[in-house]
């Protein structure tokens, strides 16, 4: 299965059929709510039981929003797919929904949001699905407007699937240029399935409180070096490479046939090699008892 980002623009990929999966497929639902719980944890909101106003970017069918509602927070969700929002309406989510494109910038007032989460959405910004799209400008518009609408010191935790090192670099550098401080948190770095990346950003200049939290790992020990992980990245095969179809094999089940052998022999003769003459025995099938 190839990446959704490579198939269609998000407003077309997440059609009614795809959106339906987010209400029926319990595995997708479980993963989504796990990711949102972790994102909420990474936001590190103060534990004073005060409900906050959060932003859910790429809220889709509202699975991530439900996690926020369960923790008592109010939220505003935006998504570009009408089908996904229709599913969210069916699910009667508690937050408010907007049909909007994050790459056009968020039309929100300054400093009003207490935090932002996003599950598997930010990598879509790296796509140029229309002629007017420029990933760099879209990332700039997104992170710039996000920085403005977050309160000072508020955090944003984005789970994302960058396709390769370049994409990750592009996303992180756009965020830094907008004024955020923070970085990438990798959970379960050694597992190909469970490995998840979170971009954790803090609004405002770096300070004591803005250190990037550590990722989870299998043995509960979260000490892994950022530098060494960078080297490992380069050695691992990226998923997109693994799924590329193998060079098409020319050999069919029937074998290569007499024509092919005669062609090859002719080629060798032209090169001046010693080649046995073509006879009725050339390329003849052996008997089974041989």
């Amino acid at each position, binding site marked *: 299965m190839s990446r959704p980002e490579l198939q269609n623009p998000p407003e077309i990929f997440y059609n009614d059929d795809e959106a339906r999966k987010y209400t029926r497929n319990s595995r997708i639902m479980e993963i989504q709510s796990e990711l949102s719980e972790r994102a909420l944890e990474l936001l590190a909101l103060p534990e004073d039981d005060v409900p906050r106003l959060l932003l859910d970017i790429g809220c889709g069918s509202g699975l991530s929003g439900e996690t926020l509602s369960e923790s008592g927070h109010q939220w505003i969700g935006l998504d570009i797919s009408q089908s996904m929002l229709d599913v969210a309406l069916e699910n009667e989510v508690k937050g408010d929904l907007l*049909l909007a494109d994050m790459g056009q910038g968020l039309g929100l007032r300054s400093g009003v949001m207490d935090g932002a989460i996003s599950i598997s959405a930010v990598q879509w910004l790296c796509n140029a699905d229309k002629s007017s799209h420029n990933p760099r400008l879209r990332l700039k518009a997104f992170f710039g407007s996000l920085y403005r609408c977050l309160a000072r010191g508020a955090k944003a935790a984005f789970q994302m699937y960058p396709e390769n090192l370049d994409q990750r670099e592009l996303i992180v550098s756009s965020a830094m240029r907008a004024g955020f401080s923070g970085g990438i948190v990798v959970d379960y770095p050694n597992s190909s399935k469970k490995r998840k990346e979170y971009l954790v950003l803090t609004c405002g200049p770096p300070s004591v409180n803005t250190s990037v939290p550590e990722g989870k790992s299998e043995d509960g020990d979260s000490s892994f070096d950022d530098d060494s992980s960078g080297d490992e990245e380069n050695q691992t095969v990226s998923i997109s490479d693994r799924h590329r179809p193998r060079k098409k094999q020319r050999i069919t089940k029937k074998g290569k046939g007499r024509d092919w052998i005669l062609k090859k022999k002719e080629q060798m003769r032209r090169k001046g090699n010693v080649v046995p003459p073509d006879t009725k025995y050339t390329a003849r099938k052996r008997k089974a008892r041989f």
Partner: protein
Amino acid sequence: MRLLSHNMLSSNIKGVTNGFPLRIEAEKVVVKQVDLNVRFLKNMFPKIEWKALVEASRTMGYAELPEEVEPSKLDSRDFLQKFHHALLELVLEEGALVCPETGRRFPVSKGIPNMLLHEDEV
């Protein structure tokens, strides 16, 4: 869309300097019961643009909010109830939001405002 979101939203069209507040054209307004949470209201209060909220709640047919307000009012149960009702219970189901500067209409259907911009507005 609740007035909480309306109070946060501003027009995002290129070249618009003051896109707040969006004017509401209400066709259908519904009221959804939500539990009152005093802590949330107190946390939100400083961030709310009061004038915009009063204006918006009037267009939605709720005129109980006082014109002027000061933080000391937050201790009054009566005031909190009104504030809560306007902020979280009034829902704009059908209608439109209009950019105050350009007059561009953002249609609202089934409670979801369509804030997608055209290519020349980005």
